């Protein structure tokens, strides 16, 4: 359960950007969370509100976009979407695959309120 640390880091990053923009509030944040990032979207949503208290993101709407794990097979060259934890090629069953997506954990966008 390290989602609190993730939520606090998320808000810190967002506040840094908001200050650069001289914004007075952050009403919304969109994060991208990969299936293999080790972060649980529900747990993140659950702690976000608390973590945002008394910050520029207080009351912000958190949107979580999840990304499935995908691999590129080094044997047959095809891309497929295996079901974690087994990261093998769905097409040919080979073990030798390169992970293409699934480890994402980043802020995709945020709304800021800026005074004229």
């Amino acid at each position, binding site marked *: 359960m390290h989602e609190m640390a993730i939520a606090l880091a998320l808000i810190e990053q967002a506040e840094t950007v908001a200050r650069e923009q001289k914004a007075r509030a952050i009403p919304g944040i969109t994060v991208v969370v990969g299936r*293999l990032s080790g972060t649980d979207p529900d747990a993140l949503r659950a702690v976000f509100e608390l973590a945002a208290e008394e910050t520029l993101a207080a009351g912000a709407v958190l949107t979580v976009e999840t990304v499935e794990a995908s691999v590129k097979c080094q044997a047959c060259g095809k891309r497929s979407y295996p079901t974690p934890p087994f990261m093998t090629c769905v097409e040919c069953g080979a073990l030798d695959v390169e992970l293409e997506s699934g480890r994402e954990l980043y802020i995709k966008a945020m709304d800021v*309120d800026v005074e004229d």
Partner: protein
Amino acid sequence: MCKECGCGTALEHAHGHAHGHVHPHDHGHDHVHPHVERKTIALERKVLAENDAHAEENRKWLTNHGVTAINLISSPGTGKTYLLERTLERLRGRVSCAVITGDQCTDNDAKRLMGKGAAVKQIETINSCHLDAARVGALLPEVAGNGVKLLFIENIGNLVCPAAFDLGEHFKIALLSTTEGEDKPVKYPTLFSLAPVVVLTKMDLVPNLDWSLPKCREYLRQIRPGVFIFELSAKTGLGMDAWIEYLEKLAG
């Protein structure tokens, strides 16, 4: 508060009666309403960018000082500290080692590891389930500064959270004890997919367990095909020679 604009003015007027009604006001007051513009900023900013930046600094510091750092991660009770005790004893006088050990509470592990020729520092995280790069970085000059070749970072006993935080190590080693069952790698794939090396501990107990080495190896390779596996018992010394030889090579 003024319902129309959200300013505080309406609440500030003096009045002696109890409430139960709203005071409308028609904007005769002489303050300025700032114009607020809402805009959306597109970003690709890593949530853990700050930790990652600290980790990168740590890695640079370690590399510049000729230190190889490994981040040891496992469940509580896998035998990380016991393995380190035996490891430090065997490397003493041959490879200059240091240890940063993390636990939620107590410095029991640091006490166990002291007096074996290595600099040892304990981090008590209190409420946190993982070590982070800033905490580790703050200790580096003190613990790994004086000609240390090999730094062991013994993470909090936890298979989930520590895997998400880069500490600036050169790589992670996952430990798995035979008593935990052979399917831990598939139950906790995040860590096992990130660790190029796995140490199977408590191998001396295998005769007393329903535990299958081939099955465990298979699970590990399903999660990370090229994984390098050590099988040892720090208690009996089984497999320890290969482990020590490997660490000596790592230290150059």
